């Protein structure tokens, strides 16, 4: 196994072009476990820790451009207002030590359905900035996950950053594990309200071969909120609407039975999390609406 240590982003791209089988490593919280247990023995490891740019983030007008290696701890501590869903998801990642090293780039690169960041990225609306010596492209998050532990990256591409829409409304994130901390998701759910576009987006983790959105549930809820004038009147969402939304989210799952949980439990739990996160975000939205009315 050769260890490639590029000193800059350009060198990293060149190395990846030369050795498309090279496995990028940054925090090493996933790759090193695989190597230590001999589950994986890549020909080349491409160490990105010297590429300082990957640890930076920029808060723009519309988006946050989040470097691929920005550790979860930084997201929790610095980007809570802009990326509340992702910050909540970051809180649930493993232990403090792992959160100090691991970042979203690794989650995306591995593309495990159980990656904690995915539901938050799906719900917020994100684009993955992928680059190779051939150029840069932005891959919409909806098109990024292509199969179990597979993604849309070309063999010579590296993830430089992820562009996440700044929150324009409340976001929530829930994850079920059988321990109260430091646990891999049995299933997870992300929800973001987008009052500017009057839409709701979702993300489901660990309950299908890839992270997925519950699109039918979103469409149903978008229509129901519009029809009832909820975005304007800020009324409490009726229990029947919340239940239907929850049921549709559960129906969006395509889970399996495994050592962490049963398929039917996963479906059930996604439904519960959908209902609860909708309640939390909507209550928060109503609170905001009321306050802004007050100010006006």
């Amino acid at each position, binding site marked *: 196994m050769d260890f490639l240590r590029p000193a800059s982003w350009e060198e990293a791209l060149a190395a990846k072009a030369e050795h498309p089988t090279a496995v990028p490593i940054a925090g090493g919280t996933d790759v090193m476990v695989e190597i230590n247990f*001999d589950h994986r023995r890549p020909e080349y490891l491409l160490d990105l820790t010297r590429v300082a740019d990957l640890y930076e983030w920029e808060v723009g007008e519309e988006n946050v451009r989040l470097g691929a290696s920005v550790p979860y701890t930084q997201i929790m501590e610095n980007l809570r207002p802009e990326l509340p869903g992702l910050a909540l998801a970051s809180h649930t990642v493993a232990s403090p030590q792992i959160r100090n090293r691991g970042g979203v780039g690794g989650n995306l690169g591995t593309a495990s359905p159980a990656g904690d960041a995915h539901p938050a990225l799906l719900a917020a609306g994100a684009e993955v900035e992928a680059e190779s010596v051939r150029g840069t492209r932005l891959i919409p998050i909806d098109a990024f996950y292509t199969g179990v532990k597979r993604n849309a990256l070309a063999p010579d591409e590296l993830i430089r950053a992820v562009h996440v829409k700044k929150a324009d409304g409340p976001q929530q994130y*829930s*994850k079920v594990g059988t321990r*109260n901390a430091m*646990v891999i998701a049995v299933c997870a759910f992300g929800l973001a309200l987008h009052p500017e576009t009057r839409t709701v987006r979702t993300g489901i983790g660990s309950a299908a071969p890839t992270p997925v959105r519950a699109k039918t549930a979103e469409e149903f809820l978008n229509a129901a909120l519009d029809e009832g004038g909820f975005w304007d009147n800020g009324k409490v969402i009726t229990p029947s609407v919340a239940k239907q939304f929850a049921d549709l989210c559960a129906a969006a799952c395509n889970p399996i039975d495994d050592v962490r949980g*049963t398929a039917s439990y996963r479906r059930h739990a996604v439904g519960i999390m959908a209902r*609860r996160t909708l309640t939390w975000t909507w209550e928060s939205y109503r609170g905001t609406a009321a306050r802004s009315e007050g100010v006006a």
Partner: protein
Amino acid sequence: MPSNAPLGTPTKVTQGSPTKGGIGESTLRPDGTLKVTGEFAYSSDMWHEDMLWGQILRSTVAHAEIVSIDTVEALKTPGVYAVMTYDDLPTDVKNYGLEIRDTPVLAHGKVRHHGEPVAIVAADHPETARRAAAKIKVEYRELPVITDESSATAPDAILIHEGRDDHHIGHVPHPNIVHRQPIVRGDVASARERADFIVKGEYTFGMQDQAFLGPESGLAVPAEDGGVDLYIATQWLHSDLKQIAPVLGLPEDKVRMTLSGVGGAFGGREDLSMQIHACLLALRTGKPVKIVYNRFESFFGHVHRHPAKLYYEHGATKDGKLTHLKARIVLDGGAYASASPAVVGNASSLGAGPYVVEDVDIEAIALYTNNPPCGAMRGFGAVQACFAYEAQMDKLADEVGMDRVAFRQLNAMEQGTLMPTGQVVDSPAPVAELLRRVQAMPMPPEQQWLTAGEAADVRQLPGGLSNTTHGEGVVRGVGYAVGIKNVGFSEGFDDYSTAKVRLEVVGGEPVAVVHTAMAEVGQGGVTVHAQIARTELGVTQVTIHPADTQVGSAGSTSASRQTYVTGGAVKNSCELVREKVLELGRRKFGTYHPAWATAELLLEGGKVVTDGGEVLAHLADVLEGETVEIEAEWRHRPTEAFDLHTGQGFGHVQYTFAAHRAVVEVDTELGLVKVIELACAQDVGKALNPLSVVGQIQGGTTQGLGVAVMEEIIVDPKTAKVRNPSFTDYLIPTILDTPTIPVDVLELADDHAPYGLRGIGEAPTLSSTPAVLAAIRNATGLELNRTPVRPEHLTGT
């Protein structure tokens, strides 16, 4: 010459001299700071110049005939020094085992469980060894797997071990049953007639792992005399030695063992793991060989707690008195016997719990199956039984219409009660009092997740940091449980220990050196031995010699026994040293003061004093250049075997009791549990080190919580393969899963034991699990007859 305390007579309880750092004080562990700061050297940290690394190839299937093993490619690997299989074993002794030597050092002809050692490799780098092991080609012809009682005892069942000749085969109903122990007393059939209420239950206990943090590891160094020095993390050096030496073909004095840093044990190091393999490779290659399991291998490298099915029937009269108990306990011992016979003895003899019930018919068996071998783990058979009888107590109390605690108190045993084995409980048994104490503790406040601000503190809620509820669906429940555990090795086992104690003067200061073979596995023996020596010899400075086989056996660090038995041995040897010192003093100074002849003399603060406190001489003057050293064995009172048909007999040395009150909050919609508090009351006889006592109780309580809500090795019933051999999927409690554990310690002396002490390590592991389960049942109204409880069970999904 070894000197023994008289058998069967109570040890005199003496009030030790008040020397600083003596018994009863919370002196600190000598290894505490090193462990907390990461500087302590564990067995996996050892290194020797020129050493090789050993690697074990393990079976990928659970039950198969071995058709062939091809080691050619492995041997060709550069850097490989040796590859060994069964055929390379040097003597006719090719098996080992704690009681029944049924475990092959390397598989021969057949593998009986997933992960069984088949071949071993030594190479100059661990990676080389691992890769070479992977090149060994083993051809298996798979056999059907036996995974439960019905497949094990079917008339045409394949025998896991053919041609058994162990001493249990004569009394078991089927060769796939390791051991069977009935406990029969009174007449259950007629007692059942008196019952106004009868409660039956079937309970399932999952397979728990000890999950010690320091994986199996050791270093074998070949010696010039043809012997071997083995540095090893174990629970009992001399038991290892007796199993290792014959396989190597060496006399025991040529296998010199030294305890290295042990990272936890909990029963998982009672059986051998890599000891013989490392020695074989070291003797074969003439080089030191180190073997360290990684976490994955560790899950295959030691026995687990027996999973169990328990069938219980209790009766009670309408005024709440127990009439009878009929119980059947089926323990899955897996492929090899390990400690199964003794676990059967415990499960059956303690199967009625700490209650008065005169008509009893209990049967416990352990099966041979192709599941992972199971053996010793903290609580040892008493844990599984406690889970069942405590669930029964709640159901019965409800049937009778009594408060659940009051019902237990009404039926609680006390000093003088007859066990179902006919043994009289002849020391305090404060069962009702322990329950009263946990019940009397203040309840934790409701809804602790509410904060001054708007947001809920999710750390206080089920789901914790995963942010699954802000209070929705959360219901509180409270549950109680109490248990009974034996202390020490039972059923007639010669459960002695040995201590060598030396007193000498170094630089004008008297110093005691305590040398035992006791395995310090975290329990705190090294702390209390020093305390005992200070108390008995009146010195401040005590050196604890490293544990090795250059001194007699200390017995196992198991069964909550070390403070009792090796502590007793240290006390005894100190007393013998003290007698000698006083003799010396009388000879030298006797004529100067009449008190030398008439008064009771003590050693205190480095001086010989009368019981009135008058100083007669300085130890330094008494000893002058002389060293007083005594090595002596010490025994607690003997026990006897249980009758094979009736289970009657004076089987246990001592009983120990703990009670818990669990307060849980359950997210009833998601099936997630937060244990809010686990209050414990335990009688410890005498707390030699109160800080350590509380630590043991909190640790045992947490381990019991683990198997209540998360810890389980999952074995595929179709293949008998382990599905979750990692800390990713075998979950143990984090600090966010660990509740507040208020502890109420009782000290009611047991007059038979040194200082009146009672073993403490295991009892809290028993009642913790059923208390948590009772609290979850209380919150959800569900029956929950299995542990651990998973979200699926709570949500019906």
